[in-house]
Each structure stands twice: as C-alpha cells, then as structure tokens.
C-alpha cells in the first residue's frame, strides 16, 4: 500500500448529505429561472420570437406609363435588379470584396466609399452597390450564392424614357423621396421610395405611383428569406395619357436638337398641348437609376440651364410679337381712329430721345394692317405713346400675358407686364413715360413665357376665348376664361397676321400651300443697339420668336417658338419649326380624313382604328 493511503478515515457522510441538499436547492433555483421565462414572461418572448422570424419585404409597385394622345409610349417602367451587399459579418465582407470587385466590375474605391458612407447605419442594413444590375451581374450573384453570401438581389421598378431627351423638360424626372417629403407624408413614404421630382412625374405623381405591396417572409438569423407566408400584391400606378402628339413632338424636337430655346404647340380649340420642347435639356434616364452627385451638380450649375423648362419658365422679352397686343389694344380701346396711320422715316423722337425702326430706311406711310405685316416699330411707338402704359397693361394681362396660364406643370413662371402701379410698388418712383415706347414693341420690362405667347395669339385669333393649356388628355372640364373682343378687332388683327406670311411680310418665306397659315415674328434684343454695337457681334444676340397658327380665324393649331442667342431675325430662326409643325399637323389631318373617307366608302362599318386606352383623370376637379 502506498504511503498516502489512509484507510482508517471515515467517509464524511454529513457533508455529503449537505452537498446533496445544496444540489437540490440549486436545481430548484434554476427551475424557478426557467419558470419565470417560460411561464410568466412567455407571451412577451413569443412575441419577440415572432418578430425575429417574420420580415416584411416591400413589393415595389411599377409607376404608371405616360402615353401620347394616340397611345404611344413616352415613359414606362421596367423591373430591374439592384445588387445589395450585406454587412452583418465584417470578416466575411472583407474576404468577399476582391472577388466581388472582379465579378461585378466595381472598383475597390467605389465599394469602400459606399461602405464608409453607411458606416453609421445599423449593420443589418445592406448597401446598394449596383443599382441597375446587368444580366451578367445577376448571373454572377446567382452562381456565387454559396461562396459569396454577402451578395443579395433586390427587385426594383425603374423608370424608362425610351425617347431620352424628347419631352424631358416637361416629363421631369423621378428620384428618392426627400427628407422633407418623408416627414410631411405622414408615413405614406418610406426612405428610399421613388417619387416624381419635377414636371409631369411630379404633377401626376399620385396617379402614377400606385401602391407598394408587401411580402411576409420567414427569415433566418442572417435575414435570408426561407419561405413566403403571403403577399399583399402591389397595385401598379395608373398610366396617364397625354395630349402630346408624338409626330408633332418629333418634328419640333429634331429642329430644336442643337438649338437653344423652346417650342409650344397648342390645339387652338381646346388648349391641349400637342408638342412642347425646351432645349438644352437632360436625359431623364440618368435620374432613373441613381444620378451621380457630379452629374447632378453639372446639370445644376450649367450656364445653359438644362433643368429649366423654357416653355413655361423661360421669361423672355416677346419683341414684335407683342405688337399683336398693341394692335388689339388700339382697336378695342378705340383710343385711336381705326384708320390711324403714321409716316415712318425709319426713326422717331419721343420724350427727347430718338427711337429707331428695325428698317433704317423706314416704311413710309403705315396703317395698322401694314404695320403688322411689316412689323413697323414707329407705328407701334406712336400708338404706345397714345395708349399709355396702363391701357397696354390692361390688354396684355387680359390676353394672358404676365400671369400664369395654369398649365398642369409645376413651377410655371408668370412673366411680367409693367404698369404704373408695379413701378411704384417695386422701384418707388413714377413710371417714366419713355419706357412705354420700348414696351410698345415688346422690349423694356416686358417678359413673357412661350406658352403665354402661344395662348395670347390663340385668344386673339379665337375671338377672345382664353384657353388653359393642359397636358393630361382626359382632364375633365377644362375651364376657359373669356376676354371679350369685337368681331372687327379679331378680323383686322388676324388679317394682319395672315399678311405677315401671305402678303410679303416678315414671314413671307414660310408660306404653306392651301393652308391659312398666319403668325407674327419677333426679334427681341437682349440689349440696346448702342450697347450691342459697342460689344460687337456678340452683343447683337437676340431672341428670335415666331408664333404661327392656322387657319386664320379660330385656329386649330397655334405654335410659339423661340430661338435664343441667335443674331438672326425671328422669322428666319424660329419660323421654320413653326411652319414644319403646322404642316405636319395638316398632313396628318388630311391623311386621316382621307382614310376615313375611303373607309366610309369601302365598308359600312364605322372604322375603329385605334384600341381604346385606359386613361385617368376623370373626376378631377
């Protein structure tokens, strides 16, 4: 027996029994602990377990399409995939970055930058590393599910503008909901939601956006969906049909492609906008994915202001087009006799200052008709002086200038028609009578938007019906104001505008066969002749206007066009696009009439050429 072995000692039975009691006590204590969790608080924990397990994944509703008046697609949506990077596991993430960079063709710097930007977000919120994944990208993610579990695909709906820059300024663009909108929406929006930010996208956002659905899924501890419990389907946004005629829009667009300016074509009977162009513009597709900050800053600071919709926001001097307002004012106010005439020597003296006519050699004896046809400045200087600024203001605003037309686009500008009251309010001095002379030919403080000018001509030629231009085809009950004009006034002024094109006037190069194409040109100087001469050619830059319509009375189509920064006459720069649109309109109309005629002769049934397209807007106030 070894030395350590001591057999005579008794087993300490009492201490062992005590150990048993302590053991029983501890087990009871543990059972009390389990009882607390499993019986007393079990409801609370069951709730937490349920919340752990079930996740709600939004199903993004596609935005409604935009169609032209014949149902041709101008804007639509398509499903696409974003690639997400899960960040739960930093070690795994670090290891996965090099193969991801290679597989998806993203740079290390980009990835780091995005991860850095999300540093303070909760770890379980993934980062979007590729907003618009290509098919190859998707295949890469799918085939590396096992070895790159940090990648995840998310289906999103994206906006597609198949015609790129066409109509961009009026269609606008979409983008992520702003913090302010988020707050005001009262829970309607979630961060990251896509909303209309500008143009029609913003104006009709409520119809277009639809309602996102919700998928209830069971997820595992790393947030991967294991199975679906149920879907609340997304309600797609409703399509809207526009008044735009793609064919006319295309004519306007191709002419304006490399020019700076705007075109608005209205249906003279209804106020429907048939075409609307503003150049330079942007490609809304750039906004549909995620516009890089640099790109956005470039658009915002570009001196050519591509984000400005010149058709409704460009506030420009109307130049000689304003003479139509003067002529209407002269006849309506009866402040001057109808046969009033002026001798134009090429210049005239008012208030001690010489004012030039655009034709240095003068027009000789000029009555109202000749004054419109030849756009004689001296004639209008004279009647301007006789009428006075407040009468001019009355008729100009009556015909819709210097105030918003109410077109269904956000952020329309009002332009400005000066008055004595305005000068006193803003500049705190009396109106200088000499200013009236400049206003009479659409210079000085007068600024208008192209859409106002188109409407003004439509109002005069239409006998005083003041239309409200609009872009949503089925806008129920479009209100039209009335500015009463006498038959004699309308006849005389429209005869003048007919003469501009058809009687050797300033627009004689624009004649169209068999069409009562009428109009008025305008060439607004950006600065006075004196300053312009001193600055040389650059200083002579003008805004060339042409507002044309047909037929002469009660026009079906009215087109206003302005070309900025050209040194040429409005009839030359802006005239052709107006003529081309009017021509295209009639060609289309005649072809349609012919088709109808043949259809009537050939078949007893009424022709149904186009399918009906569901549109929205009915019931709107």
């Amino acid at each position: 027996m070894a030395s350590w072995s001591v057999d005579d000692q008794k087993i300490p039975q009492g201490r062992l029994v005590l150990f048993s009691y302590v053991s029983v006590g501890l087990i009871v204590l543990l059972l009390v602990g389990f009882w607390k969790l499993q019986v007393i608080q079990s409801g609370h924990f069951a709730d937490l377990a349920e919340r752990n397990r079930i996740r709600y994944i939004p199903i993004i509703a596609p935005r409604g399409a935009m169609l032209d008046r014949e149902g041709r697609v101008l804007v639509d949506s398509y499903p696409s995939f974003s690639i997400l990077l899960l960040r739960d596991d930093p070690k795994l993430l670090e290891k996965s970055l090099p193969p991801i960079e290679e597989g998806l063709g993203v740079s290390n710097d980009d990835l780091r930058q995005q991860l850095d930007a999300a540093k303070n977000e909760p770890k379980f919120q993934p980062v979007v590393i590729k907003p618009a994944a290509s098919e190859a990208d998707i295949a890469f993610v799918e085939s590396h599910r096992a070895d790159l579990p940090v990648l995840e695909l998310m289906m999103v709906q994206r906006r597609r503008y198949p015609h790129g820059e066409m109509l961009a300024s009026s269609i606008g663009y979409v983008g992520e909901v702003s913090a302010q909108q988020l707050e005001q929406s009262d829970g309607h929006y979630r961060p990251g939601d896509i909303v209309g930010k500008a143009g029609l996208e913003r104006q009709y956002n409520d119809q277009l956006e639809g309602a996102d659905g919700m998928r209830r899924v069971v997820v595992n501890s790393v947030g991967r969906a294991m199975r679906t419990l149920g879907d609340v389907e997304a309600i797609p946004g409703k399509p809207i049909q526009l008044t735009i005629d793609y064919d006319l829009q295309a004519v306007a667009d191709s002419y304006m492609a490399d020019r700076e300016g705007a075109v608005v074509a209205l249906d003279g009977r209804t106020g429907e906008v048939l075409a609307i162009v503003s150049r330079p513009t942007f490609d809304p597709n750039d906004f549909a994915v995620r516009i890089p900050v640099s790109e956005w800053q470039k658009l915002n600071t570009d001196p050519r202001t591509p984000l400005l919709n010149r058709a409704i926001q460009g506030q420009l001097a109307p130049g000689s087009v304003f003479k139509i307002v003067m002529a209407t004012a002269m006849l309506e106010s009866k402040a001057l006799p109808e046969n009033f005439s002026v001798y134009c020597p090429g210049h005239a003296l008012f208030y001690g200052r010489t004012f030039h006519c655009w034709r240095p050699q003068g027009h000789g004896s000029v009555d109202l008709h000749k004054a419109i046809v030849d756009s004689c400045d001296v004639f209008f200087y004279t009647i301007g002086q006789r009428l006075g600024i407040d009468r001019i203001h009355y008729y100009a605003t009556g015909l819709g200038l210097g105030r918003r037309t109410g077109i269904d686009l956000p952020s329309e500008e009002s332009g400005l028609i000066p008055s004595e009251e305005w000068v006193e309010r803003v500049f705190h001095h009396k109106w200088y009578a000499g200013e009236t002379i400049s206003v009479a030919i659409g210079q000085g403080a007068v600024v208008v938007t192209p859409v106002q000018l188109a409407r003004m001509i439509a109002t005069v030629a239409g006998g005083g019906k003041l239309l409200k231009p609009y872009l949503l085809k089925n806008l129920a009950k479009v209100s039209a104001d009335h500015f009463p004009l006498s038959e004699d006034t309308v006849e005389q002024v429209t005869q003048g505008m007919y003469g501009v094109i058809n009687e050797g006037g300033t627009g004689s190069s624009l004649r169209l066969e068999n069409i009562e194409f009428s109009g008025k040109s305008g060439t607004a100087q950006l600065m006075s002749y004196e300053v312009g001469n001193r600055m040389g050619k650059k200083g002579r830059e003008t805004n060339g206007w042409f507002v044309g319509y047909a037929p002469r009375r009660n026009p079906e189509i009215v087109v206003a066009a302005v070309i900025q920064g050209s040194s040429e006459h409005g009839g030359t720069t802006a005239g052709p696009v107006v003529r081309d649109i009017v021509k295209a309109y009639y060609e289309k109309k005649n072809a349609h009439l012919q088709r109808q005629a043949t259809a009537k002769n050939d078949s007893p049934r009424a022709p149904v050429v186009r399918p009906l397209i569901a549109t929205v807007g009915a019931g709107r106030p």
Partner: protein
Amino acid sequence: MKERPSAHDFDWILLAIVGVISGLGVLEVYSSTHASGMAGMHWKQMMWIGIGLAGMFLISRINYHTLLDQAPFLYMLGLATLLAVLLIGHSRFGAKRWVELGGGVNLQVSELMKLIIIIVLARYFTEVDTDRLTLQDLAKIAILTGIPVGLILIQPDLGTAMVLVPVAVVGAALAGIEWKHAAVGLLLVALMVPVGWNMRHHLKPYQQQRITTFLHPEENRRGAGYQILQSEIAVGSGGFWGKGFGKGSQNQLGFVPVRYSDFILAALAEEQGFIGVCVVLLLYLGLILRLVDNAQKAKDRAGMYVVMGVTSILGFHVLVNASMVIGYVPVTGIPLPLMSYGGSATAFVFMSLGLVMNVRMRRFVN
C-alpha cells in the same frame, strides 16, 4: 470481500441516467442541425458517445489507487501538455486550446487536465489525513489548482479554467475547512471581483465584450448581447409545453447561437417547453445524487474524493450552462455535459464517469 470487481457492481442505474441524457442530447443535436449545412452532426455525436463509453470501461478497469499512485507524474504530464499547447497548439475562435491529433481530430487538452486535477487533489486530500485543514494545507491546494488554472487562463479559456476550481472547493469542504478560513476565502473572492473588473482590459476583446454585453444585453443586439437575448427569446417563447420537436423557430432558423452545443438547452427549452426543461434538469439532479450516493459508499476517502471531484465538475457545468441559457451569467463557453455536441467534452464526461465506476466496483474489493 472479493478479490476482483465484477460486472454486477457496475452502476447500471447511473449508466441508465447517463444513457437517457445522452439520448436526449443526440435528439436535440439532430433537431438543431438536420435542416442546416451541419446535417449529420448527431451521427458524429453518437460516435463520440461510443468512444466515450469505451474510454469509460477502460478507465473503470484500472484500479483508482494505481491512478492515484501516479498523481505526481500525471500532474507534471498535464502541465507539460498545457505548456505545449500554448507553444505549438493552433488557434480556433481566438484561443489556443487545441492540439491536432492527426486525421483531423483535435483534442482540447484542458479537458484532460480536468481528469488529472480530480486525481491529484483526491490524492492530496487523502494524504493530508485530517478533519481540519490548516492554512498551509489550503495554500498548497490553492497552488496545486492555481498553476493549471493559470495556464488555461492564458490560452485563454476562462470557462474551463473556472471548472477546475470547484474540485478544490468541494474537496476542501469535504476534508473540513474552518469557518474562519471559508469566510476569509469568500471575502477574497468578493474583493477579486472589482480587481478583476479593473483587469478587464487585459482580457481578450471577445472576453471584454462578453462581460460588457452581459451587463447591458440590450445595447448591442447583433453582438454578444444578441446571443443572450436570442437564447432568452428561445427559452421564453417555448412556453410551458414547447413548440414541438423540430418546430422551434429560434432554433430552426438559427437565431439561437451554437444551438447544437453550448446553447443546446435553449434549443430544447424552445421545442420541449418548461416540461422538457424539468425532465432534463431532474435527470441531472438524479445523476448528481446518484454520484453522491457512490461517494457515500466508497471504500475509502480517496475513492470518495475522486467521485466528488467528478460530481463537482459535472454539477458546475450544469449550473453555469443552465444559468447562461437564461441569462443569469455571461456567455463563458461551458457546455452542458452529455448533451452539448463536442468530442473532447463528451469523452471527458464518460472517462470521468469511468473513474466513478472504478471506485464503485472496488468498494467491496480489498
């Protein structure tokens, strides 16, 4: 008195309890892993149980007196292995605990140290030959235990290091500790807590995190506090009757951390409810009481110390693991004996039970 131990003296009741607990463990390992990438783990666990049983019978064959004879040698061997592991062992989860045995098998050597410390302390307590331990005796016990504890702490493996302490504490209590010494000891432990708190910066980051998240579990929902919280959610949501075998969402969807190993009791609590927990904890109580019974019937004090060494380690494991699952103590990495998946741990439990069988079979042998 018989000359040789017989199979009749084998503790079949103890073996039955162990069998039931191990069986429940295999079932829960299956439930936790069958639908995941770790499917088939229960087969491996059964293999370990088989190896453990073989080890148990082997150890029960060697007279425990022979083992106690070799105590100094075993002690030196144990310390040498621990040192070796610090020098050549390879890291896993940020700690050097493993030696490669070849063939892909890794042995956690600190498990071996548990067996050795039981034998070494049993020998020492027997040798002291008194009913009143002196301060000197206590100091020697503290040093004997402290050296391996320190070596395991450096690995670092706080859990296993702590597990060695109850062998010394329970042994001292049985050998007869004076009240004043016990009181001073308790006071020292109480004083160590704030000192340890200040020393926390010397801990490995994962240990620091474990402690801070234990104190503030809600703060870091995806970190270590997340584990405790998920474990509590699993246990609590199981309710009285449980969600049913294989139907616990916390378990099946992987919210419960290492649900097949350290947190297997949480998985079981979710699927089998409070009823299941009662059955399991009462089985463990049965196991402990049966072990104490064996200690009471031991032939000599040496046998009693061996059995109680085993009992204190197993009891400590159950106590700490169950407390961790319900959030009473920080996550320490102490598995639930016989149920948690793990080769070294399972083998240790069976081999330590082999020591118990050894003592029992020789109670009538001279």
